[in-house]
C-alpha cells in the first residue's frame, strides 16, 4: 500500500517538476493577492497587522483553491485516470498519493513563503511562527477537501468556479482556526488549542476525504 | 384574549413602529412561497400538463 502511494507521489512530483511554472504561478498569485489588500484598504501599519492573519490565510486558501484544477484534470484528459481506476494499485492509494503530491507542490511552498509576506504586514516573530504552524497543518486539509471537490467536478461545465463554490464553505473551519491561531499569537494569547484543532481536522480529513474522493472519481468515470 | 394585544387595525399594521421590519419579513415569506408555487406551475406547464398534482 505504502509502496503504491510512494510511487504515485514520485510520478506526480516528476510531472510537476517538468512544469515548474505551475508551482510558481500559485506562489505568485499568493503574493499578488496579499499585495492587493493594502492597496485597497490603506497601509496604516496597525490596521495591516490586525488584518494580516485573515488576509494571509484567505490568500493562501485562494491560491490552494486555484491549483486544485490540475489535481486530476491532466490524468483525466489523457485517459490515465481511468487506467488508475482499473489498475493494480488500490484507488485510495492513488488518491492519497496524488493529494500528498499536490500538497508538496502547493501547500508546502505556500507555508514556506508565507512568513516573508507576513513581514510585509508587520507581523512579529510569534505570529509568524503561528502562521507557519497553522499553514503547515491547514494546507494539507485544503488539499484533502479540495480533492473531493475536484473529483466531483471532473469534466463538468464551468468546473473551476463550481469547484470554488463547493469547496470554499467547507474550508471555513480551517480558515477560522488557522487565522485564529495567528490572531491569538498576535495578541500574545496561547494558540495551542487552535493548532490542536487544526491537527484534529487534519487527522479527520486524512482518514475520510480520500474515500469520498474515490467515490466521487468512480461516479465521474463510470 | 389575544386581540387585547392590538388596540386597532392601525396599531396592528404599525407594529409599534417596527411595521416595516415585521411586515417586510412576513411579506417576503409570502412572496417566496408564491414564487415557489408559481415556479412549480410553470415547470408543469413546460411539461405539457396544466398543474402539478393533477394527473393521479
Amino acid at each position, binding site marked *: 500500500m505504502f509502496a503504491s502511494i510512494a510511487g504515485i507521489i514520485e510520478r506526480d512530483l516528476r510531472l510537476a517538476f517538468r512544469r515548474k511554472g505551475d508551482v510558481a504561478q500559485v506562489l505568485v498569485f499568493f503574493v499578488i493577492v496579499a499585495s492587493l489588500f493594502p492597496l485597497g484598504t490603506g497601509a496604516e501599519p496597525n490596521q495591516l497587522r490586525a488584518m494580516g492573519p485573515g488576509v494571509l490565510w484567505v490568500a493562501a486558501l485562494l491560491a490552494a483553491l486555484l491549483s486544485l484544477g490540475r489535481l486530476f484534470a491532466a490524468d483525466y484528459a489523457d485517459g490515465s485516470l481511468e487506467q488508475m481506476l482499473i489498475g493494480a494499485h488500490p484507488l485510495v492509494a492513488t488518491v492519497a498519493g496524488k493529494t500528498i503530491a499536490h500538497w508538496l507542490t502547493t501547500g508546502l511552498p505556500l507555508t514556506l513563503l508565507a512568513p516573508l509576506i507576513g513581514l510585509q504586514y508587520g507581523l512579529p516573530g510569534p505570529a509568524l511562527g503561528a502562521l507557519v504552524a497553522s499553514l503547515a497543518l491547514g494546507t494539507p486539509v485544503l488539499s484533502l477537501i479540495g480533492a473531493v471537490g475536484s473529483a466531483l467536478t471532473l469534466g*463538468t461545465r464551468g468546473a473551476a468556479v*463550481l469547484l470554488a463554490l463547493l469547496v470554499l464553505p467547507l474550508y471555513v473551519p480551517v480558515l477560522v482556526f488557522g487565522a485564529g491561531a495567528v490572531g491569538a499569537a498576535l495578541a500574545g494569547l496561547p494558540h495551542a488549542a487552535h493548532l490542536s484543532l487544526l491537527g484534529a481536522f487534519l487527522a479527520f480529513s486524512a482518514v475520510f476525504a480520500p474515500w469520498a474522493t474515490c467515490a466521487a472519481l468512480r461516479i465521474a468515470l463510470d | *384574549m389575544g386581540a387585547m394585544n392590538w388596540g386597532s387595525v392601525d396599531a396592528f399594521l404599525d407594529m409599534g413602529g417596527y411595521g416595516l*421590519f415585521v411586515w417586510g419579513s412576513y411579506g417576503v415569506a409570502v412572496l417566496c412561497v408564491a414564487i415557489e408555487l408559481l415556479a412549480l406551475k410553470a415547470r408543469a406547464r413546460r411539461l405539457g400538463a396544466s398543474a*402539478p*398534482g393533477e394527473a*393521479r
Partner: protein
Amino acid sequence: MGQVLSTPDIGLAEGSARGEWWLRYAAPQAFFPLAGRLIPYFALLAVLFALCGLYVGFFAAPTDFQQGESYRIIFLHVPAAWMSMFLYVVMALWGAAGFVLNTRLSGMMASAIAPTGAMFTFLALWSGALWGKPTWGTWWVWDARLTSELILLFLYVGFIALKASIDDPRRADRAGAVLALVGVINVPIIYFSVQWWNTLHQGASVSLTRSPQMAATMLWGMLLMAAAAWMYSIAVCLARVRLIIREREREMAWMRELGESRTWAQ
C-alpha cells in the same frame, strides 16, 4: 401518463419478491400517484398550522420589554432556520439512501428538496437582517447563527449548481449525494467553528430576554410555525419530485425514440 420505458427499478423487484408493501414505492412509477394523493393533505395541514402559529405569534404572545413588536419576526426567522438545517439533513439522508438502496427515486427526492431548503435559508437570512436592523442598528450582524446560515446557503447553492452542471441524471444524483454527505458532516463542524469565532470577536448575538410565561408562548408559536413549514415543505417537495419524475421518464422515452441522449435543461 403514457408509456414509461425505463429499466425495472430494484425497489419494485425487491419489494414484490419480499412482500414488503412499502418497498414498491421506491419505484418512481409507483411513488408518483402516491405523492399526488398525499399533497393536498400536507398542504391543508400547512395552512392550519400556519394559522395557529400566526395567531399565537401575533395575538397570544405579549410585547417584548426591550425589543417591542420587532421580536415577532422570531416566529418566522427561527422556524425558517430550523427548516433550512432539517431539510439539508433530509437531503443528505436521501443521498445516502440512494447509495445503499441504489434507487433512482432517492436522487430525485434530494433534487426536489434543495430549492425549498435554499428558500428557507434565504428567509432565515432576510428575516435575520430585518430583525437585526431595529435591534442592532445594522442590516447585517455577523452573529454565529446568521453566519452559519449564510454558509448553509452556499452549501445549498453548490449542491444545486453541481447537479445542474452534470448532464447525466444518474451521475448528477450520485455526485450530489457525495456532496450532500460531505456537507452534512461538515455542517456541525462549521457551526462550531463559527460559534467559537463569534465569541472570540465578541459579536452580537441575536437573542431575547424573556419571562418564563412568555418563553412558553413563544416556543409554542415557533413550534407551530415550524410544523407549518414542515408540512409545506413536504407538499412542495412531493409536487416537485412528481415533476422531476415526469421530466426524467419523458427523457427516457425520447431516448428510445430518437436513439440519442439529450440534456433535460430546456
